[in-house]
């Protein structure tokens, strides 16, 4: 009944983790302590892997934990366990919203929510920029302002910014090009 346990443990994570990827972390530590399906070190590794794969940390961790405890079916079941509460809750909210769409209070709430939404998106951008365009560890070590900026990355960012205004390629194309540039010019420093 390991599959049922996996499903339920990750269902609980999906049900109570509010606020996206990193919000799942405390729950993952709890699962690790309770069931020993994976270690705290595995969680740290998965954060690194999640930064280098498309999935969210919670999704990745559920697949990984499910796989090491129950093989391929375990990986799939644990991930579905994580996703199920999100899907149910949103289906219910969508139904309620449809009913109250023209309610003036709902409209007024969205007046505030949209500003919050774009503020959260901007904050997400800043958080990525902190790692992508700056080199904080090297700056803290040397204290030299020249070390603070990842110059190659900033140059690429400027070129991408103007290229996207001029050429209407699919975002996926720009992502692919940036990956290539990163490999060719050793953006990761290795």
């Amino acid at each position, binding site marked *: 009944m390991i599959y049922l346990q996996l499903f339920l443990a990750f269902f609980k994570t999906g049900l109570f983790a509010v606020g996206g990827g990193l919000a799942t972390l405390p729950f993952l530590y709890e699962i690790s302590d309770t069931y020993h399906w994976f270690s705290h070190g595995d969680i740290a590794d998965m954060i*690194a892997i999640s930064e280098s794969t498309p*999935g969210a940390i919670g999704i990745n961790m559920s697949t990984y934990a499910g*796989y090491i405890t129950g093989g391929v079916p375990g990986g799939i079941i644990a991930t579905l366990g994580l996703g199920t509460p999100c899907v149910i809750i949103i289906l219910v909210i969508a139904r309620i919203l449809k009913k109250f769409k023209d309610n003036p209070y709902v409209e007024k709430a969205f*007046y505030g929510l949209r500003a919050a939404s774009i503020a959260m998106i901007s904050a997400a951008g800043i958080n990525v920029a902190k790692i992508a365009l700056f080199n904080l560890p090297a700056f803290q070590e040397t204290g030299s302002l020249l070390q603070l900026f990842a110059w190659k990355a900033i140059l690429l960012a400027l070129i991408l910014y103007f290229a996207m205004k001029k050429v209407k390629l699919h975002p996926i194309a720009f992502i692919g090009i940036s990956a290539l540039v990163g490999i060719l010019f050793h953006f990761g420093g290795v």
Partner: protein
Amino acid sequence: MKELLELYLIFVKIGSVNFGGGYAMLPLLERELVTERGWVTTEELMDYFAIGQCTPGIIALNVSTFIGNKRKGVAGGITASIGFLTVPILIILLIAAFLTNFAELPVVKNAFAGIRVCVCVLILQAVERLWSKAVVDKRTLVLYLVIFALAAFSAYLPVSLPAAVLVIGAGVFGIFFGKAGDKK
């Protein structure tokens, strides 16, 4: 059935390139759903993200469910979410089975350092496009600045509020000080 398949494939595509967290999927959704298909409006996308931020679960899945549900009801919501999960599950299964040192490979490190630069620029341009739809007057500008400061620089501030609290606070602010009727 054909529409569900199309929905599934769109979300497989988005799920396979959604680097850098839930909000990074916004430029992809805009392109696929607003520009190319006209299935949802940009305002709706922003609403979905705001709700996804303060409801439980992975934001990307919340948003996928919303869009799928709008298009094809409950079946659509489930289809879009499963589509979004497909490639991430496959990738982690492969990594767990064969490539435990995946994140340490030089080619991976370099590629993702490049991708992160692209994600920043994509998000910046999405913010530029959305700006006029969300920041409509002085009140929303103040609200934006406060929430942005609290969310982006929480590590340097004496107080740190969970993102869900910020978003719910903004909704309450809207109910008391917002204007109905001029949007949506």
